[in-house]
């Protein structure tokens, strides 16, 4: 029987297609979480009120913040889940090697981030309309977004979601490498938060958020996310390339 020669990229595509089909449950959870987030967003994500002479007004911001945050957490958890043993073993029942398995996982995370980012915007519209119907009739809706802002907003959401997915992926791989990370990672995260709190001088986490959040140039922001995500993912690739598949 002759030996088959296969091309890496062909197998990556096949594994990616296989994952889109078989990890379908991920998208079901996405929809459930978005519905939950819509519910939480119903009171507006920010509000205020004011009055002058005879006019009294309340205003509410109906933004996608909460939905976006939920999606970021969803991406983080999804990324951890697909590094677990059951999912890893699935790949190896068919043709693959570690790099292909990882690259197809990353492609899957990227496409689900894009999907999540787009749906954040779609569901924002949905809940704004719902809010309009369920709130009282005197509402005036101001939609302040231009088309460019809309696109920039969507890309930003996608990038944030992907950043969290990459972080989750590295965390997941570390836990697969050694179960000790299951203790170490939460300890470092929460310990850091507590230390920041005790010192009264929150630096570490603030700096991390500022690094992304305070960036005013959109291009630079894209670069920052791209670089940090690729570092996280390269680290995962490097680690997993040495891991044994099945014990």
């Amino acid at each position: 029987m002759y030996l088959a020669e296969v091309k890496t990229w062909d197998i990556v595509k096949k594994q990616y297609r296989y994952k889109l089909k078989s990890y379908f449950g991920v998208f079901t959870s996405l929809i459930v979480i978005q519905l939950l987030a819509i519910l939480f967003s119903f009171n507006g994500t920010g509000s205020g009120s004011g009055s002058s002479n005879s006019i009294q007004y309340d205003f509410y911001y109906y933004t996608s913040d909460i939905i976006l945050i939920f999606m970021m957490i969803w991406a983080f958890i999804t990324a951890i889940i697909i590094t677990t043993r059951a999912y890893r073993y699935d790949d190896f029942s068919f043709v693959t090697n570690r790099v292909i398995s990882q690259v197809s996982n990353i492609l899957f995370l990227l496409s689900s981030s894009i999907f999540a980012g787009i749906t954040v915007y779609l569901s924002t519209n949905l809940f704004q309309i719902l809010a309009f119907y369920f709130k009282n009739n005197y509402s005036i809706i101001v939609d302040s977004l231009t088309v460019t802002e809309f696109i920039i907003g969507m890309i930003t959401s996608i990038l944030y979601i992907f950043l969290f997915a990459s972080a989750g992926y590295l965390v997941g791989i570390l836990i697969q490498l050694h179960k000790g990370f299951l203790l170490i990672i939460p300890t470092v995260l929460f310990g850091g938060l507590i230390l920041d709190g005790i010192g009264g001088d929150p630096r570490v986490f603030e700096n991390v958020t500022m690094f992304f959040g305070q960036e005013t140039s959109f291009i630079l922001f894209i670069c920052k996310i791209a670089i940090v995500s690729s570092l996280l993912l390269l680290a995962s690739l490097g680690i997993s390339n040495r891991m044994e598949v099945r014990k």
Partner: protein
Amino acid sequence: MNVVVCHELTKQYGRSKAIQNMTFRIAENKITGLIGRNGAGKTTLLKIIAGYLHHSAGDIQVFSENPFNNLKVSANTIFIDNEMSFSQGLTLKELLETAGSFYPNWNHDLALKLFDYFSFNSNQYHGNLSKGMKSTFNMIVGLAARCPLTIMDEPTSGMDSATRKDFYRALLKEYIAYPRTIILSSHLLDEVEDLLEEVLLIKSGEKCLHLSIDQLKEYAIGVRGKTVNVEKWTEKMEPISVQEIGANMSYAVIRNDRSIKELEDARQLGLEVTPVSAEDIFSYLTSKTKGGIDHVFSRG
């Protein structure tokens, strides 16, 4: 051409060695049985060959390449065992289709025929199958993939006897129609001995014997008779096993390399010389102590 070449292969888990200094070659297009007791290291060895595990020392080549993390080896090898994991999100039919898209030699027609023959329901999920059904499904994937190197790690575990017979027959027919290298591990030699061409016997992580099945069948002879006579006759030999089988009677298994004169002597001493089945040779060779299970009770 040799498909698998191992040289001084060793695999260590912490301090314990699962595989020790194994050197062997597996030739192309042969059915080789990897036979060993529970915990002898069969599965570890097969996983190293399939590229799932990293070996600790020595050298292994599959299709002249190191199998660990190797795409060429992965594409031309299929490893079937009962821990095989398939996605929970796909039905059995979809799994067969996916497998077909990955393996270049996949025969979908055969897969579907076997699928119907073993009366699977195409809308079922792999996770909901019983143990025997899982093994059967995995076997279908293994046969239909037509990989140049097909590795099956105790493929029949959980199958009922009718399915086992069907499986061995299907394996043989497929092998004759499309010869390929098959490594079959089992701890039941008598079940697979008609199928095998070669046997690789391993004992606690080490290679014990590697010979053709015919050679193995003639590897040893048994002598039965009075304990005194058996002891006298086997004095200068190294018996593989000696058992007491009743009052002053013993049964010894020795290598089948005695001269005609020695065999004549045995007859003179009133010893009965009998052939030993491959299965018995296997259990004598791999038993950890010379006395066997009887020793445990006789000492108590």
